């Protein structure tokens, strides 16, 4: 049984880490990007960002003034038990979000869409989002805090099988060029692409591809992994760098996730996880141990499971 107090305390620490400490994989990726950038202004921007991450850690202040929208991903081993159950878990995550918003401080970004009511704590209707995943074994719970920034850099389009890879490339470039100008996408970014599913599932896949996979990771399907490499290079060949200045720093990495879709369609979404790619992870064990890390390790074989253990009915298999 995992104590609810431990969940709340850990969640507050994760909010703090996510806001202040840039994940090592993104930092390494950005340093590599900066090392090959030859645009004067784009280079200046990248150096300023690298200094900014240091300043944030030294001062223990948020790396970006727009601290984004805090959201939670919860993954549970099949044997995990939480004191008070899932309702207590959600209440603890909401309390931790409010407390951390005040203590760090974070910007109280969350408001009612129509009445603009602001509780000054990043909690409200449907906020923070809490999403769930499960794994076959284990008594642990993974808490993943993501502070997702940005009103720009995300788009969705219904493509069709006849659009093919050429159409996917086109929409990828359109998204980067449209939102890369003036640096609205806060690039160089981790670009997440969702393919398939339905419209909502496609958006979820793309967002998770951006936020829950690390720089340097590759999809377990080698043909998708090859596309990830190709798209990263394509994005960096646009001629655009940080803030939309001349350069070649658009994409720190490109992550693609897929889901089965309607036979007639090929949904596509593009998401930019920005220069403040903020995520922090902790695994809470039943014996009270807490291990912090920055790799969500979300997309396991189980999450990408492709089929089902199932014996087709006899008559159907005969006629097949």
């Amino acid at each position, binding site marked *: 049984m995992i104590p609810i107090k431990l969940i709340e305390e850990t969640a507050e620490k994760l909010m703090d880490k996510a806001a202040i400490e840039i994940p090592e994989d993104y930092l390494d990726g950005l340093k590599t990007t900066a*090392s090959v*950038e*030859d*645009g*004067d*202004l784009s*280079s*200046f*921007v990248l150096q*300023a*960002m690298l*200094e*900014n991450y240091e*300043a*944030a850690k030294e*001062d223990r*202040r*948020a*790396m*970006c*003034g*727009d*601290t984004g929208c805090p959201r939670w991903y919860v993954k549970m081993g099949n044997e995990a038990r939480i004191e008070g159950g899932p309702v207590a878990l959600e209440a603890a995550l909401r309390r931790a979000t409010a407390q951390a*918003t*005040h203590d*760090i*401080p974070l*910007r109280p970004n969350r408001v009612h869409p129509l009445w*603009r009511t*602001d509780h*000054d704590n990043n909690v409200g209707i449907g906020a923070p989002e809490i999403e769930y995943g499960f794994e076959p074994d284990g008594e642990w719970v993974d808490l993943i805090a993501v502070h997702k*920034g940005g009103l720009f850099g995300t788009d969705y*389009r*219904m*493509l*069709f099988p*006849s*659009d093919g890879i*050429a*159409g996917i*490339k*086109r929409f990828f470039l359109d998204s980067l*060029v449209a*939102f890369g*100008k*003036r640096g*609205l996408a*806060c690039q160089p970014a981790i670009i997440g692409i969702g393919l398939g599913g339905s419209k909502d599932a496609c958006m979820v896949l793309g967002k998770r591809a951006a936020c829950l996979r690390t720089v340097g990771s590759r999809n377990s399907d080698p043909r998708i992994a090859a596309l990830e490499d190709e798209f990263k290079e*394509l994005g960096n*060949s*646009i*001629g*655009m760098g*940080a*803030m*939309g200045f*001349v350069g070649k720093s658009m994409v720190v990495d490109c992550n693609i996730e897929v889901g089965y879709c309607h036979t007639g369609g090929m949904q596509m979404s593009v998401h930019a996880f*920005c*220069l*403040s790619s903020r995520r922090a992870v902790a695994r809470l064990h039943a014996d009270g141990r807490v291990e912090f890390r920055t790799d969500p390790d979300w997309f396991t074989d189980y999450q990408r499971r492709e089929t089902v253990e199932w014996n087709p009915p006899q008559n159907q298999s005969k006629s097949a």
Partner: protein
Amino acid sequence: MESSAKPKQIRLSTTPSVEDLAKLKLGDIVYLDGLIYTAREGVYMRACEEGVALPMDLPAESAANFHCSPAATVNEDGSFKMGAVTATASFRFAKWIGEWFRLSGARLIIGKGGMTSRDYKTHFVPNNAIYLTTVGYGTGALLGRGIKSVKTLHWRKELGLAQAMWVIEAENMGPFIVESDRDGNSLFERENAKIAKNLERVYEGTKPAVLKRFGETDDRSDEVIG
């Protein structure tokens, strides 16, 4: 690769003279000293549309308007805690900016992403104002270091923490980049024009989507900010 031409760095007052501003060139790096206030849609609507009198003496106290909501909180004793500050995208505020210049006498608009050169020529040039863009985006911690103190907070009750008018004392606060000059030129538009030349080659081998969208264009000199 090391950059060949390091941008020029300049210290500037937040109540700059016309001569100070005339010296600035597109792409120069600026650090600010003096009072800065935040104002975005909440303040603009209240001042420009509802006609509520400004709560501070502008531009005497400050001629620097920051498009920003800080990551900040008010302590129980009424003091302020401000961590990081970062700009929000300015193009959304173009509809109020002419009236805002008339009311505030601002000479520095600080934000994210700039406005169009059309806005600069129409509203900024006649008011001796220029646009400074934040860097990154997201050098919030560096900018936070440049805040010597939070002076006061206006319209907190009416507008909430994110939209309220924060008055901060800046000391060597930056970096910012000069995005518009005294003639109303835009650095972003200059860069866009250079990049546009390469786009045709990058798009080779792609094809337009089978299903179109209303209002769609393949003119890649277009911008989403209008």
